[in-house]
């Protein structure tokens, strides 16, 4: 966590009261996002998201055939590993990085175990109770300049939108239990239901009633008194929310924050879906994809 002097905090707070932020944005404006999918040739689906010039997240998906969990026999499994690279920031070295990684992983797990993604998980089932796809989603935080939750959820969603899974053929056995599967390495399908995947929106309050901002820079984050992060599904439902910070938020502000978060989430979902259309089309057509590279 970057730490600021009281004077800088005050500057940011007073600016927020006037509705202007240090980089000229209005309260709910989001910095330009740079998004690229299929950046990793070895992953089945991948995406890299950068927000502003700093926040930089890379996500790769690796599918595997496994057994479904006992509690949800007809669903596949989406498992997350988030790693905050200690190269990115000295804060990520040791405990700080581990804690943040855990926090980010928890949020993703919360988003992707919620009922809004049930159909997505069901589409990963192969044989009920016996075989399913498990998607190992590895996220790497390469650099942090605020709004990690938003960037991470966006990257995961984008990677899911373009992930391809090999076709699986079920060979019926003599008894019910003896079904076998064969993975066809030639033919691939995309995950249609990944359109259900949610996005996380974080709004941070600076302590003043009714004033809060979206997509905070790390400076703004370190002087925020409280923030809420809400998962927004494409239907505008909340699918997991957590708060952070010790300031507390009064009810009216909170209520309006939730409304704005939901609206902002829908806008982001809409914009990303429009943006990703060409990526998805390319992927479907099987056109070769040349990653642009890391230094762009």
């Amino acid at each position, binding site marked *: 966590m970057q730490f600021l002097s009281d004077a800088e905090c005050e500057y940011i707070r007073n600016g927020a009261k006037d509705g202007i932020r240090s980089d000229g944005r209005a309260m709910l404006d989001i910095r330009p996002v740079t998004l690229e999918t299929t950046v990793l040739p070895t992953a089945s689906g991948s995406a890299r998201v950068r927000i502003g010039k700093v926040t930089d997240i890379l996500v790769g998906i690796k599918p595997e055939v496994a057994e479904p969990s*006992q509690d949800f026999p007809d669903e596949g499994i989406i498992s997350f590993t988030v790693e905050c690279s200690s190269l990115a920031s000295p804060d990520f070295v040791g405990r700080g990085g581990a*804690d943040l990684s*855990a*926090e980010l*992983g*928890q949020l993703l797990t*919360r988003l992707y175990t*919620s*009922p*809004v993604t049930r159909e997505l998980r069901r589409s990963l089932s192969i044989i009920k109770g016996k075989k399913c796809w498990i998607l190992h989603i590895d996220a790497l935080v390469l650099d942090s300049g605020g709004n990690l939750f938003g960037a991470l959820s966006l990257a995961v969603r984008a990677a899911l939108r373009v992930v391809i899974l090999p076709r699986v053929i079920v060979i019926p056995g003599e008894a019910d239990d003896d079904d076998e599967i064969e993975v066809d390495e030639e033919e691939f399908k995309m995950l249609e239901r990944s359109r259900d995947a949610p996005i996380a929106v974080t709004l941070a309050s600076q302590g003043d009633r009714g004033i809060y901002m979206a997509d905070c820079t790390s400076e703004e984050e370190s002087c925020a008194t*409280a923030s*809420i992060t*809400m998962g927004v*599904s494409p239907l*505008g*439902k*909340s*699918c*997991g*929310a*957590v*708060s*952070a*910070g*010790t*300031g*507390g*938020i*009064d*009810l009216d502000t*909170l*209520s309006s924050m*939730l*409304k704005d978060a*939901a609206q902002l989430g829908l806008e982001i979902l809409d914009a990303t879906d429009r943006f990703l259309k060409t990526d998805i089309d390319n992927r479907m057509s099987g056109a070769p994809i040349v990653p642009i590279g890391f230094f762009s």
Partner: protein
Amino acid sequence: MGAITYGPLVRIDGEGAKTKERDVREDGRRWDELRPIYMRVGMLSTATGSGYFEGGGTKIFCAVHGPRPSASNYTIDGTMHCDVRWAQFSGREGAAGRQGDSMSEEERELSSSLQRTLASAVRLENYPKCRIDVSAFVLEDGGGGFAAVTTAASLALADAGVEMTDIMAGSTVAVIGKQLVVDPSAREEAIADGTVRVGFASQRAKVTDLMQNGEVDLEQFREAIKVCCTASAQVCGLMKECLVKKAKKWLKKRGRSEM
């Protein structure tokens, strides 16, 4: 060992409960009714302050140690450390960390969540160079375990004589279909579409901690938060009674000894 674990046996599937459209709940409560609550403070001898909360099947001990010298770096303000644990047999699968050492992910998350809630009211600036340790232990979780931890921890802090600008209580609301269910039991929690948990500072009327799981409509979400706050305010009322009762006892005892 190659053993296959089947999970605790005490869990009974709640299938069918969802379809039952009744005016009252399984335990006969109204939808907006809390379970009977029992609270006590100051029953642990080694701690500076302690609180016990029991509501429905949920039973929680919470202890506050300190202010004590901080082992870490010099800090102008005091620091607070929270440690929330579930007993192995608390009935909450996966919540309890493995024996002995490390905390489970959930315990870790909840500990930092509790720290946030409490730190919003504790006047840490009055405890330079010191740390305050708050440790909670859930003996049994019959639903709403974490919300109750917040309540128990607040009681313990107040009992410890730690300066606070407010009293916090937690409460949970489950969304089952269209219905908002206040203070859900473990069974209701299991069948809910989504749950909303709020830590609430009653005097400042501020939400200090918010957590939502599952899937909830925006409107339901906002409504649920309001309902949570109302429920928390109710709990806060009871907490105050409990604290004042204890205070009277203390002062009476002191009055005698000073005479």
